[in-house]
């Protein structure tokens, strides 16, 4: 059921600026959708529109068969009637309540009995692994514990969708890594539908079932992480998801084998050209798809810079009239200044033909 949460041509303006510009999006039940984009792209506004914290200027929002917003039908369900959970970037735990009271509040508001509240809070606290800290106040919790408490509060009312607004960005690198797995585990154990907003594409790739890339209020491309990485449809997506080399190239075909002509005219053989035939195109070549060697084969180049990271080595290479970034295993150490040969394993054509 792909259209459990459905946004239709959703638009939100703040004065002159269009924060969200005609976004249409569908999220399946139990799916984890990560919305990524640079800061200011409108992803947080999109989340706040789903939450009901902002009123859209146009479009519609459907959730589980209910209309949450419709410009046409003049429907706006206010946030407290949406049954939507949310975790803010700074967690927004209430400082005047302890962990138990924070997590119990959504149930208290719904008028649940004392015993039931206690049972449900206990369940959700063990789900997020925060048992025993019920009596602590937010300022007595570590960043990670605050994060878990905020998650528990958002989950306790069994939300129809869980919205996460950059929830990991205030944690240190190690904890962030750990919480990625935690969010995945909680999604698995509860089956909750999650919309996760982040500017960190590696975080999104690590946890998302599907990603949506936003830029300047518009949705650029959606798809599973692998699809976005391997087949970016625009230069922006290619650059934003991972690291890439963008090459304006001419594609030639000789005796059944495809090759590209680099800007200086040098030809490089490309094994997998993503179904592209002759013509001029902008190619995206991932750094790991460039193979270096000392023994001929391919185009000539020179190593400009070497960055050794232990498990991988990054090279900056000039060759064929362009600068290339290359990622290689540490087994074959090249030196800066060394002249080498390179081949391209695979390349993707960006959906933009060059007119020459």
């Amino acid at each position, binding site marked *: 059921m792909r259209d459990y949460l459905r946004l239709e041509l959703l638009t939100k303006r703040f004065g002159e600026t269009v924060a969200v510009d005609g976004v249409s999006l569908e999220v399946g039940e139990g799916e984890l959708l990560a919305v990524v984009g640079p800061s200011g792209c409108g992803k947080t506004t999109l989340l706040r529109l789903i*939450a*009901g*914290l902002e*009123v859209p200027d146009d479009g519609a929002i459907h959730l589980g068969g209910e209309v949450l917003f419709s410009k046409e039908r*003049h*429907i*706006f*369900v*206010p*946030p*407290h*009637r*949406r*049954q*939507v*959970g*949310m975790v*803010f970037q*700074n967690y*927004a735990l*209430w*400082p*005047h309540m302890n962990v138990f009271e924070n997590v119990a*509040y*959504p149930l208290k*508001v*719904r008028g649940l009995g004392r015993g039931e509240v206690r049972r449900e809070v206990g369940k959700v606290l063990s789900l997020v692994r925060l048992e025993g800290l019920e009596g602590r106040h937010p300022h007595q919790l570590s960043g990670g514990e605050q994060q878990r408490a905020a998650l528990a*509060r*958002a989950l306790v*009312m069994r939300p129809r969708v869980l919205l996460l607004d950059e929830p990991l960005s205030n944690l240190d690198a190690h904890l962030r890594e750990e919480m990625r797995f935690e969010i995945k585990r909680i999604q698995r154990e509860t089956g909750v539908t999650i919309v996760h907003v982040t500017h960190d594409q590696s975080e999104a790739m690590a946890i998302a079932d599907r990603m949506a890339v936003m830029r300047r209020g518009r949705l650029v491309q959606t798809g599973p992480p692998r699809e976005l990485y391997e087949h970016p449809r625009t230069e922006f997506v290619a650059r934003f998801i991972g690291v890439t080399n963008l090459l304006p190239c001419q594609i030639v075909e000789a005796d059944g084998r495809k090759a590209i002509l680099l800007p200086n005219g040098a030809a490089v053989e490309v094994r997998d050209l993503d179904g592209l035939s002759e013509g001029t195109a902008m190619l995206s070549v991932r750094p790991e798809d460039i193979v270096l060697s000392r023994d001929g084969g391919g185009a000539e180049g020179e190593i400009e810079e070497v960055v050794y990271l232990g498990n991988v080595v990054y090279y900056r290479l000039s060759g064929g009239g362009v600068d290339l970034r290359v990622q290689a295993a540490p087994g074959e150490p090249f030196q800066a200044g060394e002249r080498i040969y390179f081949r391209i394993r695979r390349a993707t054509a960006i959906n933009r033909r060059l007119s020459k």
Partner: protein
Amino acid sequence: MLREGWQVSEWARGFDAREVVLAAALALLLVLVAYPASLVLLKALPWSNYLDLAADPLARRALLNTLYVGGAVTLLATLLGVVMAFLLTRTDLPLKGVLRALIFLAFITPAYIGAVAWIQLLGRSGYVTTLLVDAFDLSAPPIRLYSLEGLIAIMAIHLYPLVFLAASNALSITDPSLEDAAASSGATKLKVLTTITLPLILPSILSGAALVFIQAIACFGVAAVIALPTGHYVLTTRIYTALGHYDVRMACALSVVLVLLAGASIAVHNTLLRGRRYTIATAESRKPGLIKLGRWRLPIAAVLLLFLMATTVLPLATIVLTSFLKAWGLRPALGNLTLGNYAKMASEGLTARAMRNSLAFAAGGATVAALIGLVVSYISVRTRMPGRKALEFLATMPLAIPGPVLATAMILAWMNPPLRLYNTPWIILVAYVVAFTPYAVRNVSGVIKGMDPALEEMGWMSGASWARTMRDITVPLIGRGLWAGWILVFLMAFREIPISTMLYTQGTETVGVLLFALKSQAGGMEVVSAVAVTVVAITLIGQLLVEKLGMRRAWLL
């Protein structure tokens, strides 16, 4: 949050509570503020009034005197405030803690009580006057206290702390690396001071000075007891006497002039406050190095200490002494001391009633003002609802309305049926609400601005309606700030003079009425002093409470 063009009925699923509250607050303020103010304006409107005004020598003098007093007080207070701020924040002066405490004391002592003390010291039969006349066998008091200059001096020594606070705040948040950069470019200390430091804190100084000017031209009590006895009118006292002679047109025309002056300086103050953000130091910047005063260190400290002792401790000590004397004028010998004045204050019909009334009016006024303050600040800080600007304007406009003008407006508005509040306690309560709501708004909106909006949004996301979130989340979180605001308004209302003096009737006398009416009656000075000491004590306790609530030490206006 909701926009026009949508039918309310379709939105009526929870958020309409905010619109109801906004509409109610707007309606209330229209009745309480806009209606009386427009009555004054209407009465003052015919241009011919101003021709009469210009032709009236007393009115002309009152305007000129007001400008003279306002200008001179502002100049003096600014000089004192800036010099002290600089000495206490940027030099190695000793006794900084003591000096700071004395400056704070100077400010929480109401100017009017200071004036009563100076009358006891320098008046015709004052302690110092008698001493000097006896010692040098003079025929007349050596110091002319009852004059515009006396008024200027008393106002200046009570108002300079406003500039002191603004300037020392600015000095302590100004990034010292800006000064270091100038010094390392080869500028001398004096050059750095005049070309870097002063320009950086100038907006703060000027905004403090604008506040002083407003207070100086709005001052009523001191002007009435110091300048009026020798026939020197200022606008506030002229309005008061005009109303006493039932010359409503004159009172209203003068009121408009006074409000224009105050409004202009508030505009200056607000503009300057907006423009001063760029100097703020970051948390990482180090503390500024202190200028070494060298051999001037002790002499400067001594002069400052002497000045502060003379302008704050001496008058307070005088009042305290008088409050324990059997009769004012007696030598301060042990046999002449008594607790009787305090007993009289507590038991005598009028004084006890005045105390009770002031407590009730101040508490009631503070409660309503804090509630309105909460609604207005919440709506103007947190929402984008249409009408919020009007609401904010109405609630804060009374800042520009000096007490006598406000009282005039209240009389005009509530003197006739159907709502005839005049001659009832209600008119004083209503006037206090109007007069002090701006201070409540300012305090509460500061607290709301400091609260993360996500805390409230999380309440809604948890399923709580706006009203429920307000009750469970917002109000508990800003509770301390609300209480601090309540106490500040209470303190201001408790010691207020012009409003109740012009609005009281038999049975609704206040502490302010008591202080104002008894000052000249022989035999009353001891009891007035006892009342004054009580007022100062309550103010001190209130300020300490505010500090206990974790709020920055709040300076009263």
